[in-house]
């Protein structure tokens, strides 16, 4: 029974990683850049939801909506101001800019909201389901997280496969120049990608802080890095890969904490990443690019 309970918390943590990883993977797939500021957008989302609920006494649903809207705008503004001018620049310049944006967001958050930890109130309460006569308890946060992740996955896959914008995204991810010459507006497409990724980051931030209620300006960075790892693990650029990578990473992390050592869990997680990349450098679901000769 403890095994089952660990597995469920692993899936729950993994669901959060998966939602964050989607942001990394979509932006990478379409703009071919690593948006290292993504983790900090999560933190901003969590703060906005926190203040909406605690200072203004708004209901959690409104708090989440506000966070989603704010992060969507934030994501698009970051893209417009920091990344769009570098569209033609070498990828290293973009990468360094992304790290800069990440620090900018963290430090702005410190100025605005101080470094004192905030205790985040769970958006769905702290109760849970008791199963097997109380032997297994699953909190509502866990259930909400897993369900949210599933819903997001289904909607997103449907979006990329069945909408005009989704197809435009796939076209841009393959060949921006050709897409543009087919009348597809590449700038808009990239902007929408950032909007979706950042909206998901807001959701992830709220779920993350509901499960782990400590909120500080650096809250987003470690989950951000781990979600990036999850995206690489699953095959960066692939949406199902982000889900698979996120879930596996969450499960491995919880099992490592439970059965190996709490302090060593992160080391185990990254060791697994290294092994996977040695065996399959494109990640679990990544496509191998064959060089044409």
């Amino acid at each position, binding site marked *: 029974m403890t095994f089952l309970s660990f597995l469920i918390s692993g899936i729950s943590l993994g669901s959060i990683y998966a939602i964050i990883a989607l942001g990394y993977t979509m932006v990478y797939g379409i703009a071919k850049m690593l948006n290292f500021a993504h983790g900090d957008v999560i933190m901003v989302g969590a703060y906005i939801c926190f203040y909406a609920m605690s200072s203004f006494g708004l209901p959690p649903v409104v708090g989440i909506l506000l966070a989603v809207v704010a992060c969507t705008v934030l994501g698009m503004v970051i893209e417009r101001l920091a990344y769009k001018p570098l569209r033609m620049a070498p990828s290293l310049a973009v990468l360094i800019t992304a790290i800069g944006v990440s620090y900018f967001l963290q430090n702005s958050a410190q100025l605005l909201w101080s470094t004192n930890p905030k205790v985040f109130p769970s958006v769905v309460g702290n109760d849970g389901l008791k199963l097997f006569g109380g032997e297994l308890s699953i909190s509502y946060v866990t259930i909400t997280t897993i369900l949210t992740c599933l819903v997001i996955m289904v909607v997103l896959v*449907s979006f990329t496969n069945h909408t005009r914008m989704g*197809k*435009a995204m796939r076209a841009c991810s393959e060949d921006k120049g*050709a897409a543009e*010459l*087919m009348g597809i507006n590449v700038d808009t497409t990239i902007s929408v990608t950032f909007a979706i990724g950042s909206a998901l980051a807001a959701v992830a931030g709220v779920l993350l802080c509901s499960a782990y209620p400590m909120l500080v300006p650096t809250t987003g960075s470690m989950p951000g890095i781990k979600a990036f790892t999850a995206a690489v693990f699953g095959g960066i650029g692939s949406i199902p890969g982000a889900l698979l990578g996120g879930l596996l990473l969450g499960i491995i992390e919880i099992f490592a904490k439970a059965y190996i050592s709490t302090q060593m869990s992160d080391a185990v997680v990254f060791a697994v990443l290294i092994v996977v990349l040695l065996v399959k450098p494109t990640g679990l679901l990544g496509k191998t690019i064959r060089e044409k000769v």
Partner: protein
Amino acid sequence: MNKRLPPVKLVPVPSTNLIPERDAGSPPILECRHLGIDFGGLTAVSDFDMAIGRTEIAGLIGPNGAGKTTVFNLLTKVYQPTRGSILLNGQETSRMTTVQVNRAGIARTFQNIRLFDNLTVEDNVKLGLHNHINYGMWSGIFRLPKYWKEEKAAHERSLDLLSIFEMADLANVKAGSLPYGAQRRLEIVRALATGPSLLLLDEPAAGMNPSETAELMDNIVKIRDTFQIAILLIEHDMNLVMGICETICVLNFGQIIAKGTPEQITNNPVVIEAYLGKKGEE
């Protein structure tokens, strides 16, 4: 192989440029005046003057590195011209972006094939139809009736277009796994799907065998006749160029060295010199 389109009589548009007489009723679909571009200090194209009639098939030829693809990139605004003007349908394009030029009616294919390899043949064509499909995000996600209606129309349109090249049965194949010749044909279909009034073909016959080329020639003429559009093509295969182009423009070192009907071009000493070198030079 040596079938030829009936010769056309060329008449001037208001400027000195010429278009076929049958298109003279309406202004040319495209007119370039003194078009030029410099890369750093290097002049890649200069004083490029050309007009294309509404239903004309025109050829752009010249030795390697003459600037032919650069002209295509100028017309589609991939490059911004340094000098001169491009009038599309009488409208100045200098302030337009690539996307706007496409919407205004120029579509193109690429010298090195640039299909969306991981998408199916049909999806490639549908991406060409991108600006002709109309449904919102939510109808797409939840597959509302509007989605089905528009998708059905797009599906039928795609198959119609694919059937020009008898490719309708390949609709669900991944574009990247098609044989080379079929990829070239799919590029033409995808470009046609954007609903152009001027189609630019960059070496459509490259890598094709003679029978494929002959078929392609028929199809280019068929496309012009069916859609009543103008076609400008870059090609090294002289059989194709001389066989189906009504007017030919010869480019060398970024400058037009000759313009005219196939007959005028084949007998032009300057063109022969550019292609074969001067007589008795060795």
